[in-house]
């Protein structure tokens, strides 16, 4: 039991961060960022390069991951999404663009980093063992703590900083935000950069545990969309709830259902469909609050 709880918190905290980035971009720009998983993978590879290959301190590599993805996100918004949104009122246009960016990033990652699974040296050694009731390697605990701290930091930023307040305002009423003097173009770019940065941050954190490979992008995007659907699109609390719920479902599934074969995600998908049929807006479906 303790083990399942701990695994749930660990997975949930990572997932919540991925979902937060996705839901931020959705709330601000009404864009479904299908490339979110690829951004996560890229973040992992950047940390792999700077920490695993070049031997820089882990924290520095992690920061480089964040900055790289933030810049990439800003460029993608400014030169791809913003012009498309200006010219086309149809949502499909940005969806296709996002899908295209996902393929593009996949190709770039393949060219630059190759198709192999990559891992990095452990950031801390040793295993926490509480009477064999709860076993967890120290590096997982550390990553989990870092993830939770990042989530708290992100929420505090959105809640209390002037920029965060402007982003929330923009998500809730674009025209009113403009009338307050918010530069919509600039803040859309900042929001997209932040969302991409969160994806890169999780990638950099998780590369130390699971390693990283090219194929992880698509499945990560799908999980991110599931979490956002569970919690309700465009809401901070929804993304966190969705992340934690999916994390726990996966942890419980791995512990309880593994003897029946690999059916955890089959059951999760079926339950999600039933859930969405009953409550299509998700648990906390409303615009960004």
């Amino acid at each position, binding site marked *: 039991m303790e083990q399942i709880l701990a695994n749930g918190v660990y997975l949930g905290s990572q997932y919540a961060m991925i979902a937060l980035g996705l839901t931020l971009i959705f709330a601000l720009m009404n864009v479904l960022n299908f490339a979110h998983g690829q951004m996560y993978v890229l973040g992992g590879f950047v940390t792999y390069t700077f920490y695993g290959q070049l031997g820089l301190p882990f924290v520095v590599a992690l920061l480089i991951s964040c900055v790289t993805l933030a810049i990439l996100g800003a460029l993608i918004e400014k030169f791809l999404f913003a012009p498309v949104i200006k010219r086309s009122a149809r949502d499909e246009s940005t969806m296709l663009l996002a899908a295209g960016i996902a393929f593009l990033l996949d190709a770039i990652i393949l060219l630059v980093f190759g198709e192999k699974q990559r891992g990095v040296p452990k950031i801390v050694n040793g295993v926490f063992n509480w009477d064999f009731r709860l076993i967890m390697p120290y590096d997982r605990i550390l990553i989990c703590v870092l993830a939770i701290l990042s989530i708290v930091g992100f929420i505090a930023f959105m809640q209390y900083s*002037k920029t965060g*307040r*402007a982003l*929330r*305002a923009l998500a*809730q*009423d674009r*025209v*009113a*935000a*403009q*009338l*307050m*003097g*918010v*530069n*919509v173009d600039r803040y859309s770019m900042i929001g997209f950069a932040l969302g991409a940065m969160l994806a890169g941050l999780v990638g950099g954190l998780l590369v130390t545990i699971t390693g990283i490979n090219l194929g992880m992008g698509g499945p990560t995007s799908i999980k991110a969309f599931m979490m956002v659907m569970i919690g309700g699109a465009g809401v901070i609390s929804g993304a966190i709830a969705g992340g934690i719920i999916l994390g726990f479902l996966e942890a419980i599934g791995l512990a309880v259902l593994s003897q029946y074969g690999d059916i955890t995600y089959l059951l999760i998908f079926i339950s999600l469909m039933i859930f969405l049929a009953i409550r299509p807006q998700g648990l906390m479906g*409303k*615009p*960004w*609050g």
Partner: protein
Amino acid sequence: MSEMLNFKNVELFYDHVYALKGVSMHLSQGETVALIGSNGAGKSSILRAITGLAKIKSGSIEFMGQRLDGRTASDIVGMGIAMVPEGRRVFPFMSVRDNLMMGAFTRSDKKGIADTLDSVLERFPRLKERYSQAAGTLSGGEQQMMVIGRALMAKPKLLLLDEPSLGIAPKLVQDIARSIVAINRDEGVSVLLVEQNSRMALSISHRAYALTTGSVVIEGNSKELLHDDRIKAAYLGGEIEGAA
């Protein structure tokens, strides 16, 4: 009195349909000017043109000697023009406090913002009671007070009000009318008021322009217009004599 806002022959259209057909008007420092007229007369288009939400086709708009047309909405707020939009447009999931603070977005003087916040809360004590509540849970009248307060947070020189009485309980309409008069008088803020409730608009403004399908048809002193037969027939709904 120096002229603060100047419209010269402004034309604006949406999808090739005229919204403004060469409108000229002006507003002096310290004045309250009302724009009256029915739906689609172009009142809101004037406000949209000032705030940069709509691009004008020809003509010019000047504010304190500077051209406004061609600037972005966010620049224009910084120049001292704040708008209370039609339908209030609160940020529904943000607290009253955060809504008010959004009004001060273009300012960076912490001390000054805190002072303005105090004065807004003093003017609208109801907002103090609802301070941490989500704005979407407020009543229509409270929301209207909040968005007026939000606009004041920018410390504007010119306040634009788009249909502030729309969807508000009649008793509160009077309260809101009184606050508009008080804001204009106490803080020296010039006011441009767009209203379908012509009687209210004329009774709290100095001058007024009456619009029909994108053109100014009558302009003059508000007190006189209240008793003008053309205005009575077209805008005050032909009510019983003396009810004004």
